[in-house]
């Protein structure tokens, strides 16, 4: 079965992990597979790890809200709207997983704010919306890159790097949609 033909995200992920030879251990497997009890049982969590996850969660929740603003702007054509909703769905998955992991590690998960202060008045065209989203995704790549080396639990670093890869793809696809070179350099920073 092709990865692309796999009917659900969970099945696709399982298929990918099985085929790729990618080996994730301990809490990383638990985190990525959704087995939070295993994640919690893996040992006492470092408070800093919980904080890192919570900061990432807050950013994911804000990204979800930002994509909602874009989706409801009536500025996006269907193909761009489909992209926005797909990427918003990814952020929802990230947020869900991060929140559950924070709680299972004994922390109190960040929650979405009642309202967010986005520069809505400056979004006048589809390109404005896509550029705004691309900037958020670029920032997310940098934020995860800056978080990965901080985790005491290296399995959490691996899990965060997995999300980083997804955000980098969002950034590239959004740049492509804007007619820009999708990948700006060999390294991200």
């Amino acid at each position: 079965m092709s990865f692309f033909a796999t009917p659900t995200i969970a099945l696709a992920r399982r298929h990918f992990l099985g085929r790729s030879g990618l080996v994730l251990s301990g809490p990383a497997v638990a985190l990525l597979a959704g087995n939070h009890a295993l994640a919690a049982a893996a040992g006492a969590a470092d408070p800093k790890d919980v904080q890192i996850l919570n900061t990432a969660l807050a950013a994911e929740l804000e990204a979800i809200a930002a994509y909602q603003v874009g989706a409801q702007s009536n500025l996006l054509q269907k193909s761009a709207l489909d992209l926005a909703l797909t990427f918003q769905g990814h952020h929802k998955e990230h947020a869900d997983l991060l929140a559950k992991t924070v709680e299972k590690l004994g922390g109190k998960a960040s929650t979405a704010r009642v309202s967010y202060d986005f520069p809505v008045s400056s979004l006048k065209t589809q390109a404005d919306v896509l550029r705004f989203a691309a900037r958020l995704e670029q920032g997310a790549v940098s934020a995860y890159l800056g978080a990965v080396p901080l985790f005491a639990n290296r399995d959490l670093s691996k899990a965060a790097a997995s999300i980083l890869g997804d955000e980098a793809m969002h950034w590239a696809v959004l740049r492509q949609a804007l007619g820009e070179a999708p990948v700006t350099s060999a390294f991200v920073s």
Partner: protein
Amino acid sequence: MTTGCFPRWAALTAALLVAALDAAAAAPSAARGEAIYARCAACHALAQNRVGPKHCGLIGRTSGSVPNFDYSPAMKSAHIVWNAQTLERFLADPLKMVPGTTMTYAGIPDAGERADLIAYLREAGRSPQCRAR
């Protein structure tokens, strides 16, 4: 006489030019800093509070003092006045300078990049976007 002196004069001029170019390259650049600021965009904006506080008015501000922003207890009690020196230290390793901050970011290891970013933050603080706030 002239031909004998010219090479020495030209060499001195060239050396001065190279030194000037080196100095220009080493001087903090707000333009380069603006590109570096894109790394902050997941959590920060100039004029809006986001996951992190807004950056308009940052230079000269006391840490933990932006109204309506929910700071960590660590940042609330840090009592740091943000200027080039304190930002330089913080951006190098936020968690080392303020243990417990929610800015869980490894920092910017390159001193030149930090200087560029601070130059941008200083310049952006004087922009119409910030003056309007």
